[in-house]
């Protein structure tokens, strides 16, 4: 079986957000470390688990973005991916999700995988739209934010948590899944993998190679006009006294001042 795992290259979650001088985006200078979005690690792990259990198959990691994404793809090699594809374009990383989904759909058409795995959402933009969009573009079955996935031949059963309940979905491959925490325990890159990853080639494609429009000449439908830090919270108040007194005073304040009780 062939698995395509989509990896988004994002700022580390420790990043202290700062605004770029143009006032419209994150200041890249503030980002000390980039890497795969945390949910993408569950996607990769699931593909590796299926491949290793079957004793055959191919796991292909794909990333759409600038050349700097290569470091993230190397980590995927080190963790166990067999191949890596970079759809290289500076504009693809910050392009709107439908543009990214179209690029990934073109890679799917070329690679013909049995399964496409993505993260539940890319941390940063926090949208989670790329997976469902990709499924619609391909007209493939899709289950979002899965916490378990069982295969039986080309049939699958997946679970996903929704507000206060779990949905069980059944369907047939080929299919698209976005992965949630709880699906598996992602492995770390191995030392041997790290050594080998340096030698493995990253297949680089330009949008044009996939028949895509140049992302820098297409007008985005959704524009980012401003990017700002949230308004600071007003100075808080420390409530003094022994536990009983402080608890009573807090309840009083929640009632009369904050008006939430």
């Amino acid at each position, binding site marked *: 079986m062939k698995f395509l795992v989509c990896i988004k290259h994002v*700022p580390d*979650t*420790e990043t*202290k957000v700062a605004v770029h001088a143009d006032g419209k985006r*994150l200041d890249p200078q503030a980002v000390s470390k980039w890497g795969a979005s*945390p949910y993408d690690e569950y996607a990769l792990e699931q593909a590796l688990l299926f491949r290793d259990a079957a004793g055959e198959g191919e796991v292909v990691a794909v990333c759409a973005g600038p050349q700097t994404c290569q470091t993230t793809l190397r980590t995927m090699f080190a963790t166990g991916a067999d191949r890596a594809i970079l759809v290289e374009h500076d504009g693809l990383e910050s392009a*709107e999700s*439908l543009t990214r989904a179209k690029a990934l759909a073109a890679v799917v058409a070329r690679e013909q995988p049995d399964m496409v795995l993505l993260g539940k959402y890319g*941390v*940063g933009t*926090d*949208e*989670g*739209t*790329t997976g*469902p*969009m990709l499924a*619609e*573009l391909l007209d493939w*079955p899709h289950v*979002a*934010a899965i916490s378990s996935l069982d295969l039986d031949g080309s049939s699958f059963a997946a679970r*996903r*948590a*929704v*507000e*206060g*309940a*779990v*949905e*069980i979905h*059944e*369907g*047939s491959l080929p*299919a698209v899944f976005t992965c*949630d*925490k709880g699906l598996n325990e992602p492995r770390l890159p191995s030392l041997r993998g790290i050594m080998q990853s340096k030698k493995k080639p990253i297949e680089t494609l330009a949008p044009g190679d996939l028949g895509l429009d140049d992302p820098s000449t297409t007008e985005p*439908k*959704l*524009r980012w*006009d*401003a*990017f700002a830090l*949230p308004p600071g*919270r*007003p100075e*808080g*108040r*420390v*409530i003094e006294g022994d*536990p009983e007194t*402080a*608890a*009573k005073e*807090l*309840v009083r304040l*929640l009632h009369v001042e*904050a008006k*939430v*009780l």
Partner: protein
Amino acid sequence: MGATILVLAECRDGAFKRSTHEAVGAARRIADDDGGSVVAVALGARATAAAAGLGAYGADRVLCCDDESLDLYQGQAYAATLAAAAERESALLVLVPASALGKDVAARLAARLDAASACDLTEISWSPDGGLKGVRPVYSGKALATVSVPAGVRTVATLRPNVFPAPAADASREATTETLECPLDTSALRVRTVRVELPEEQELDVAEASIVVSGGRGLKEAANFSLVRDLAAALGGAVGASRAVVDEGWIPHKHQVGQTGKVVSPQLYIACGISGAIQHLAGMSSSGTIVAINKDPEASIFKVATYGIVGDLFEVVPALTQAVKDHTSS
């Protein structure tokens, strides 16, 4: 004549969810600015039966797809039905609650209609001539992005639950209902939701609750989560957690608040024994009122807290539970 704004009405057990009332209310406010109309779409066997009630929240008409096979969420069919409704109504703006179902169907719909996708908005304004302007939290709330879509470009926008006010029901208003067909053969779907499992005990979801009480590593061990549960129960709130305790296995991941958990904005958030790591703050710092209980006066959680109690949570939390009970009974 004003524009038509389409809203997905999400039905659970024959009743519409509060986030649907919020979305209908937001659509109403937008429509009222230029004499437009609000058209909701409801799917499932009991759609028509429930639909007229949406009038009370601001819907003018409800398009109902009374199909039993759509009682559970079937993504492809839902997206195709909504797309058909958007075409039929020539709607340029579709509003969807940013619930688990709504987020999925909205993305599919945007792809199907080749529309702009604006996610998880906390502010929205729209007009046929001005297009959309919205605000959405990004980097899990560490920043706010102002986004726009030019006039004339079809837009699918999801609205973050608990942010837009749910209008008071006006029983004198009724919506008219019309039938809507799902354009797909729902017996031929290649994936379907076959069932929904409810937990043995129905718990309030942190993402939907207006009060959340969260526990962190300061609780020392899993059994002590009962302190947090008791306080949440006394307040009628949901139980949240830091990632540290989810990773320890003290509580399932669905309770995790933060950058890799749920982003919540309840009216009241109480953090017990949580240090306030950047990834945790990202998930809760837009809450209305924040209470922090921590023995370390230097803990970062106090930087975002409205009220703080520096002390031992094993003493403070039970005292608070008691004080809440006393308050409720008085």
